[in-house]
């Protein structure tokens, strides 16, 4: 059962200030995470945020390592792979807590029923193209378009074996009406494989490939906003939504500061910053998307259930179709 929601009361602030520090294991982009930390420090003077930024899988592994060795460094943890939190929860490492904003605004799909974690951020795994290399009219409009032979040898894509985002996306797409058949056909398109979901947008930007079959939406945003000619495509078949959760750890060394910071993470202020600087999607209804970004509400989303994820099968099937 979820505990009662809590606010950033003066008592909590005082207790947190007494602890003076909070350690945040984050998979968010460094620049975004650093900005968020500074914002928190500005708002609650006397509490330092120590950002331990790393890739999602690294954080997962590190928490596993540390808890396996009874080291309790982390106060708040946050990764972009929803499945990690199921694991943490199963291990009993999470401290239930429900910030008031989460209680008020978050839909039930986006928070743990037991209040142990909530969706801190989300991003999409989108199709995109380089507008300089592909005129808008000729650009692919859907997943089905990608199977057109004219894109053979011209697409880049990330690998589910290395990227949680793509793993989630692959799960979502394979469970959608497109099914595994889509991947089987896509596998014949001589696709350039990269590891991380952050890389395909960069390949587009560099002009190495004109089209990406999947990859992070927020990278596309950030690149586009810095002037790179790339454009995301929201396919009618649906675009996989990838949720990044956050949670307080049970054995946090700074429990009060953790609570305060955890609360802060879900405030409009923080969420807006995530969106503006990081290009991330937020479940906070008051967050305003930057101009030129298609709002979440206008996109057909493909949700996936992390508890049903069969990573091994997906990796195996993928290797069968794509050869790596």
């Amino acid at each position, binding site marked *: 059962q979820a505990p009662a929601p809590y606010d950033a009361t003066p008592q909590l602030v005082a207790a947190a200030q007494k602890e003076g520090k909070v350690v945040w294991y984050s998979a968010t*982009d460094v620049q975004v995470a650093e900005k968020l930390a500074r914002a928190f420090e500005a708002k609650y003077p006397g509490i330092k945020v120590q950002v331990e930024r790393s*890739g999602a899988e690294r954080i997962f592994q590190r928490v596993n*390592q540390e808890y396996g*060795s*009874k080291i309790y460094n982390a106060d708040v943890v946050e990764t972009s792979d929803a499945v990690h939190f199921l694991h943490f929860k199963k291990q009993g490492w999470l401290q239930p807590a429900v910030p008031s904003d989460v209680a008020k605004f978050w839909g039930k799909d986006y928070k743990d029923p037991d209040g142990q974690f909530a969706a801190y951020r989300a991003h999409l795994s989108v199709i995109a193209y380089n507008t300089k290399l592909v005129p808008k009219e000729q650009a692919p409009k859907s997943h089905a378009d990608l199977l057109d032979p004219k894109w053979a040898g*011209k697409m880049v894509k990330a690998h589910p074996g*290395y990227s949680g985002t793509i793993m989630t996306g692959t799960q979502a797409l394979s469970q959608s009406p497109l099914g595994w058949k889509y991947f089987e056909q896509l596998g014949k398109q001589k696709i350039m494989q990269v590891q991380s979901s*952050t890389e395909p947008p960069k*390949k587009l930007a560099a*002009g190495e490939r004109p089209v990406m079959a999947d990859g992070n939406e927020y990278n596309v945003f950030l690149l586009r906003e810095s002037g790179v000619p790339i454009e995301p495509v929201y396919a009618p078949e649906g675009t996989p939504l990838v949720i990044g959760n956050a949670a307080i750890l049970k054995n946090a060394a700074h429990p009060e500061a953790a609570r305060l910071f955890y609360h802060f993470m879900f405030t409009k202020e923080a969420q807006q910053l995530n969106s503006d600087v990081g290009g991330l999607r937020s479940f906070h209804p008051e967050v305003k998307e930057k101009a030129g970004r298609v709002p979440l509400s206008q996109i057909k989303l493909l949700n996936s259930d992390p508890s049903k994820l069969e990573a091994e099968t997906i990796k195996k099937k993928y290797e069968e179709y794509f050869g790596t």
Partner: protein
Amino acid sequence: MSVALPDAPVALARPHFRIDLLRPAAYVLAAVLVVLVVLPLAWLAYYSIVDKDGQFTLANFATLLTDKPLRKSFGIAVAMALGVGALSCAIAAPLAWLVARTDLPGRRLVRALVTASFVTPPFLGAIAWEILAAPNSGLLNVFWRQLTGAQPYDALVNIYSFGGLVFAIACYTFPYVFTLVANGLDRVPSDLEDASSILGARGWTTLRRVTLPLVLPALLAGAMIAVLQALTMFGSPAILALPAGFHVITTKIWSLFQYPPKPGLAAAASLPLLLITVLLLQGKSWVLGRKGYTVLGGKSGEPRVTRLGRWTPVGIAFALLVLSLTVLLPYAALAKAALTRNGVDGLTLHHFRFVFFEFSATRLAMWNTFLLGISTATIGTGLALLAAYLVSRRPVAGTAWIGMLATAPVAIPGIVLGVGLFLTYSHPQLMLYGTLWILLIAFLTIEMPAGYQQLSAAFHGIHPELEEASRILGASRLKTLRLVTAPLLRTSVIATWCFVFIGTIRELSATILLTTANTKLVSVIIYDLNESGDMGAISVLGIMLLVVSFAVVVLANRMPLLGGPRLPALR
């Protein structure tokens, strides 16, 4: 008739009483190596044979044998590593010769540049090469298309290929071979070459039959390091192998750490690499055999310098080509990335401003990096010197396995080693995690093989009688090592120091598991920035590393600490 000799001073009658510290030193070193190497290895071995619940199992090894993709990735990795070894030798040996034994203009600069270029983290090099030689966007290909008017999507070079990967790795492993061979060449007494030429051997024959065989130990040691580094390298394959459509063993292992993690299988998969190391070591001693590599008291110091004459342009071209491919072009690409912004025309100092003033981690990371670099280099060189001495001179029984121990870490992929080290040093009783100490230990472990191989190759060139001459006069082994051997090995000791220093600075795969906010290092920052695609900042950091390391390398070579600058027999 016995005459009393009152005037014989007592001080001379008997040297001061002195304990031979070597035996204890050997034990201490053995203990240190055990701690550095055996602990994490034992952890690996243990994890490979237990399942989740701590029960004994051979399932991991069964998987290793039956899993076809895994086996295939092993095969490719071995082929790649051998390719890298061969290519490294093919580049490094001629270049080392040009630099050490010819009148090539600017050879000192070439030498310093090669060593410094070495500072490039391989994955950064791979990124630079992506910028240069990706089939479509690669600058070289773009340039080529402009030049020849070839069709879009036609490519001159494709870095995303097996060959491209081998090349990109060799760019950053050949300095091992280069430094070892160049130092070896410095030590070949000119008498031996003179003896060959007076019998009628042309320069080339002398080189092939006398000079090169004499640096064979160095060449083999270098090739071995190159091969093993390639085998366990993660960064470059991660960036280049997947787009090329294949896996190597390290990228496979990496994916084993993904959810659901299989550390047991990852551990098991690294053990065959250990086997390969042992085989290579064995092969090396088999090749060297009973042959001698040392000569004593060769007259006349100056190694013979070959006049290139009309071949000078060829020599320059070759050196320039190698430097271009390994240093100049990649850094030009990085410089371009550092000075421009995506989609914005013109030059900008934005990235520099960001790295130096906005990015909070930079200063701390720089400090940590150089602090660790210098301390690891100093301690590591000392340990490697002692280990190489113990193994090559066998003063204490049973030192042979020290060599094995000191070389073993090279076979373990950094990430696996990182996990092992983490588990070893994060107990409530021994809590090093989160401090710089664990990084120091990690670096010492990781850099031990290169340092050890370098110095043990160098010991092949020092005649034991030079040490004996010191000992019979009353110097203990350690003192002899310090006063006689180390100064004789001056260039090698300094090169080892630089190796370790640079290796430390560019190390990533184990580091990334062991750093925390207070112990951030530059390589980790670069890696993090890479995830967010911040090429500009990465390039700035990369260039900064190069510049600082270059300065350190040059300084280290000027250090007068080991013997004077005037060393005719050694140069």
